[in-house]
């Protein structure tokens, strides 16, 4: 029995931290924060050089063939420094969805290009209702002879402005149940397709609305079997939960470190504020939440190696828990900083905002707690 990271994972964590410290510094985050595009193709190219884009892609398709725990290790580091990167949207979510749903030939044609970083992809799933259950997917893909025609809109699509291709969930049959949902790979420039940026408070991650006005899609752009995409989306949801939870872990660790460092330096009433017990206990409470969360994250990541109910249950547990822990930690971290923590100038608000945005992304804590309850058979 051993419950720990292996040597390679430790190494990955260390090298990623060193790499990101140099390449994704707070000043880069700040520059991209104000940037209209918010994307650094230079950083992205370097990330691809590391091989990270292919982390989850099987070796046969030109990737590293690693698992979710490895991805979680890396995402923890990305979350720690808030690196603005399409790693989550493309290398984790879209790549996983393609691996789950794609036919052998589709995987052969897409995965190597995703693994090398030659193209970026993103998943377009949620719509106006913001629901992750089957009733939330209503966009219709009507069959017209050998083609499909899509009309409707998708919301909260990550990195849609830089992704080359969208994996779009659409209904190919009437009804609102899990059956009849299909996936389509649609290039960004397709006629009839338009993008509207959504202005969120977390500018380290850009979200979009995609409108489909009679977008025509060839049959071979359908990923996997017709009407059978729901279970793959569910599995991708589990992956998303673990991935976001990992980001939360890294972000929470970093926010607490910033707060503790500040508490050791800032003086009031003739002593460092870290000697005040109210401050100490805030920090200790955060730490007592963050430290055991890591074990939950590892367990949930490892559980993804099996695709059973436990994988979903553990993923939802991690998502619900880590999201709240990150939000609470950054709240306390801002408070420990006092007025400076509330300024635009100080970096603290980046983490505070990412935490709350992550809490909402791919299901609120309440949504995932209900999923845990249902999967527990209550």
């Amino acid at each position, binding site marked *: *029995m*051993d*419950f*720990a*990271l*292996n*040597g390679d*994972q*430790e190494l990955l964590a260390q090298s990623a931290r060193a790499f990101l410290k140099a390449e994704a510094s707070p000043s880069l985050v700040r520059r991209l924060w104000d940037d209209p595009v918010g994307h650094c193709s230079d950083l992205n190219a370097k990330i691809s050089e590391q091989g990270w884009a292919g982390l989850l892609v099987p070796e046969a398709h030109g990737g590293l063939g690693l698992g979710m*725990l490895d991805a979680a290790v890396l995402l923890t580091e990305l979350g720690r420094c808030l690196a603005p990167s399409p790693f989550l949207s493309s290398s984790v979510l879209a790549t996983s969805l393609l691996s789950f749903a794609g036919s052998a030939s589709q995987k052969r044609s897409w995965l190597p290009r995703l693994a090398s970083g030659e193209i970026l992809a993103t998943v377009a799933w949620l719509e106006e209702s913001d629901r992750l259950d089957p009733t939330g997917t209503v966009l219709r893909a009507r069959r017209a002879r050998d083609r499909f025609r899509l009309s409707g809109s998708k919301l909260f699509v990550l990195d849609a402005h830089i992704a080359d291709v969208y994996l779009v969930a659409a209904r190919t049959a009437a009804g609102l149940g899990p059956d009849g949902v299909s996936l389509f790979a649609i290039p960004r420039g397709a006629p009839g397709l338009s993008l509207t940026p959504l202005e969120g408070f977390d500018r380290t991650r850009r979200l979009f609305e995609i409108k489909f006005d009679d977008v025509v899609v060839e049959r071979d752009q359908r990923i996997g079997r017709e009407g059978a995409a729901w279970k793959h989306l569910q599995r991708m949801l589990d992956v998303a939960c673990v991935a976001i939870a990992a980001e939360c872990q890294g972000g929470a660790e970093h926010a607490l470190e910033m707060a*503790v460092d500040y*508490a*050791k330096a800032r003086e009031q009433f003739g*002593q*460092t504020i*870290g*000697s005040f*017990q109210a*401050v*100490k*206990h805030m*920090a*200790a*409470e955060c*730490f*007592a939440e963050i*430290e*055991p*969360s*890591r*074990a*939950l994250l*590892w*367990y949930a990541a*490892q559980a993804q190696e099996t695709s059973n109910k436990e994988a979903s249950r*553990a993923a939802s*547990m991690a998502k*619900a*828990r880590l999201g709240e822990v990150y939000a609470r930690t950054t709240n306390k971290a801002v408070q420990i900083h006092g007025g400076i923590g509330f300024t635009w100038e100080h970096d603290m608000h980046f983490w505070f905002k990412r935490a709350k945005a992550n809490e909402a992304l791919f299901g609120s804590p*309440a949504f995932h*707690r*209900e999923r*845990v*309850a249902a999967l*527990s058979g*209550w």
Partner: protein
Amino acid sequence: MLPAIPAGVDLAFSKEDEKFRRSLRTWLRKHLPKRHDEIDGGEDLNFEGPAQIAAAKKWQRTMHDAGYVAIDWPKEHGGKAASAVRQTILAEEIVTHRAPGLIGQLGLHMLGPTLIRCGTAAQRKRFLPKILTAEEIWCQGYSEPGSGSDLASLRTKAESDGDDFVVNGQKIWTTTAHFADWMFCLVRTHADAPKHKGISYILIDMKTPGIEVRPLVQMTGQSGFNEVFFTDVRVPRSNLVGELHGGWAVANTTLAHERNMLANPMRTQQLMADLVRLAARRNDNGGKVSRDALVRQRLADLQIRVDMMKYHSWKQLSDEIHGRPASVGGAISKLVTTELNHEICATALDLLGDYGPLVGRSPHAEDRGLWPRDWMFTLGMVIGGGTSQIQKNIIAERVLGLPRGA
């Protein structure tokens, strides 16, 4: 210490360990007392009357004869030198089979390991065997009326007089003192030294003249702990453990054991499973309580934390068995687990509505009144063994490196 071996997530126990688990299970099924409640004082060690105490001693003896007591101790001292994995398996099976707690746990978990590390050969030979068999029950004499969290300020004094110490003063909150045979006790032997440097760790026979034990009634209505008064109590010098004035270090070797004893993640798992069963069983106006959206939220939130602490304990366990430096001590487990246990019980009372406050002897009491009892008891565990605030001080100062306070 073992060399650090390549790590990785591998949750399987070895074949031998699983065999140990199976034979333990078979043994437990065969030997578990039919009516636990007649012998089990629970973790709070609240035994009601001599018959229960005798039965509880007999149970420990039975466990011991089968080789399931103090398996962590070295073989030469009557243990099995069992790995941390085996200890975990034993703790898991004890809890899942609802086996009664061991009446001698303070001796088994605190004094025994202390003597093994710091005691003389003669002390080990004299005391360890009877700790194992429950022939002698121990109590812990640390806290005093003026010294709780600030334990090192303790004032019960022991003065040298020939081959004896002469002890005067008072201990309080001493669990099991009313039927214990011996006490391991912290006393002040040097009045002028700095507070941590004048304390000694001694063993006191509770039958010595000059000791008076006055039971205190806990909020549960039972008398689990006591006041203990010492008037010119003579203790042979050979009962000093470790160095004279070196008692603080001796006590600290086992404070970690105490925190682990109070933070058994399996116990939390079981409380949670009981709560889930309760919710599935009870109805309110709208149907099964477990179908209520708000209840499901609360249960899931608790379940997540319960499972998290289980994985956290796996992590600590595997760091231990593979000889990796412990990332954090027991402070997090003590803080989180004891508060979580109390929250689980409080949630059960919420679900029970007007039935919640009904105690065991009342008509219509649910689960034999265990919920209100455990709800109270688990709050005691938040305080005992170092309060939550003290655990937070420890985390802030020793882990996060913030300035030390009082």
